């Protein structure tokens, strides 16, 4: 349904994203995971064609959606896709809704624009969608304003907006980061049901490996603007072959013994201007060799997963 090949994005001279590839089919969820600053949110903006809004541009690669390459789609056609066939769910619900407008009209817009509905039809549809998202008394909610809603409620409204025009693909850019834990679980379960019931393709961008584990079919691990490992969730979680993936998995808090010590990763994520040469992870990689510092590793493919690491074969042992 949607496949991204060697996507490269640049802001002026700086290239915070290069060589990212992934694809997702209807009814499937693909997770894009990485620490903040790894460029994962840029994939969402690139797919939506909104890079110019933040001053960025696509430098290379293709974004094929339903057989059509979006990178050279004219704006008018792109606008029909946005909201119509590809829905976006933003990260911070508190600031994603126009505070001056009521909830109802903001959701109705999508249906009226893409499905050519008139006001009453659109409102009926909105109430119905809000209902499916388990929002109490949706008709009343339509008359309220964003500042009268809780964070979780607002995120559901954003999701409703994304669903309003029956899109084929949903892109969720860290949908739960700004919510507290209890609400996070509800939102994740909600997204999961939607993918199943409406046969949607979901691109879930997150930094939380446990969320990936629960919901995604495939996963792409990103580090410093590049994909370092991808593949089905089971294989990646069973036998992570890239040291960074292994470290990420190790960080998931397990077990209940008080003594369990939370493991972290030394060093900090490199900023876009000082991406290290060779393999970007080598300064923080326990197994780094001389070669890692010089030439960037290729993907060593194994079945339907791959890892960009010179020593992918060697690193089978389970982390301590």
């Amino acid at each position, binding site marked *: 349904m949607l496949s991204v090949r060697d996507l490269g994005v640049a802001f002026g001279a700086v290239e915070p994203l290069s060589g990212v590839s992934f694809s997702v089919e209807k009814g499937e969820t693909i997770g894009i995971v990485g620490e903040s600053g790894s460029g994962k949110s840029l994939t969402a903006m690139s797919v939506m064609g909104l890079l110019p809004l933040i001053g960025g541009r696509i430098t290379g690669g293709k974004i094929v959606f339903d057989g059509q390459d979006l990178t050279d789609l004219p704006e008018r056609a792109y606008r*029909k896709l*946005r*909201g119509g066939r590809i829905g*976006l769910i933003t990260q911070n619900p508190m600031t994603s809704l126009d*505070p*001056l407008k009521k909830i109802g009209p903001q959701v109705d*817009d*999508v249906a009226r624009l893409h499905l050519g509905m008139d006001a009453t039809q659109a409102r009926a549809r909105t109430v119905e969608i809000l209902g499916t998202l388990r929002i109490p008394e949706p008709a009343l909610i339509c008359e309220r304003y964003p500042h009268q809603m809780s964070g979780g409620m607002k995120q559901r409204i954003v999701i409703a907006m994304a669903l309003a025009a029956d899109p084929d693909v949903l892109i969720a850019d860290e949908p739960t980061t700004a919510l507290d834990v209890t609400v996070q679980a509800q939102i994740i379960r909600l997204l999961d049901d939607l993918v199943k019931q409406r046969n949607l393709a979901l691109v879930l961008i997150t930094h939380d490996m446990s969320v990936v584990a629960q919901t995604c079919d495939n996963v792409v691990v990103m580090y410093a603007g590049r994909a370092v490992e991808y593949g089905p969730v089971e294989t990646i979680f069973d036998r992570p072959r890239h040291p960074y993936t292994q470290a990420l998995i190790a960080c998931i808090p397990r077990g209940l013994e008080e003594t369990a010590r939370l493991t972290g990763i030394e060093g900090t994520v490199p900023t876009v201007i000082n991406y290290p040469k060779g393999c970007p992870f080598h300064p923080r990689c326990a197994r780094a060799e001389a070669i890692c510092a010089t030439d960037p590793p290729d993907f060593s493919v194994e079945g339907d997963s791959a890892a960009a690491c010179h020593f992918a074969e060697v690193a089978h042992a389970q982390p301590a």
Partner: protein
Amino acid sequence: MILRYTFLRLLMLIPVSFSISVVIFMIVYLLPGDPIDNLLRVGSSPEDRAELVAQYGLDRNLVIQYFVWIGNMFQGEFGQAIVLRRPVADLVAQNLPYSLTLGGLAFLFSSTVGMTLGTISAVVRHPVLDRFMRGFILLGSTVPGFWLALLLILFFSVNLGWFPVSGAGGWTSLVLPVLTIGFGGVALVARVTRVALLDAQREDFVTLLHAKGLSSGTILFRHLMPHALLPVVTILALRIGWILGGAVTVEFVFGRPGLGSLLIRALGQRDYPVVQACLLMLALAVMLGTLIGDVAQASMDPRIREKKS
């Protein structure tokens, strides 16, 4: 909801207007000299002076005078102008329309042109246009009114003969004065609109609006403009006071009457009732301005409506 909010704001204005009316009443006694001197026939005796003082009620103690004044004010009885020897109400009635037409037109001119220029300069990010806009806004706040008025008269009336040099006859005599006052106003409104729009464009929800597939035109007019209007409305509302009194310089150069000029003349002649009436009108306009500003803001921004009531 809005009515309740407006009513509350009105209630809050009452103590304010009371204190202002006291200040206005007292200001007149700060003025050195008094109007009776202007009225007294030359070489008249102290008794004549006492009689005149009594006639205008200036002999009673201040508190009584104040309440008499306020009492009359409510019955629309502004009293008799001492030096100009005619009811103050007539004087105000004669000058107010001129101020309202000139001030009102200048207000409309500066708000519409100001907002359009502000929006254009915020939306069309063109370096040359940007530099021109900054230059224009800068010029607006540097050129003194009387100087601009003179240049406009010289160019448009003397050289081109399009408009009359001065006077208050017909629409043609309004064009240059409105341009003079409006020029400063346009600069201010344009600057505020530009900044407000730039800020609104940086808000997070704008990304989602684009993601919904709305065209940038709809986004600008349906979502961004209301946000930009909030600070603009506050600035405009606070300038309502200028409609009545701000045009003194222009009224002088163009030889037009107006409430501002009436106040200045009355100040010169120490004509207390006229000064007090003009100041009260101006204060009312200013308070009305702040009220309209608050109500407009509340009606546009639900967050304010909830918080304050």
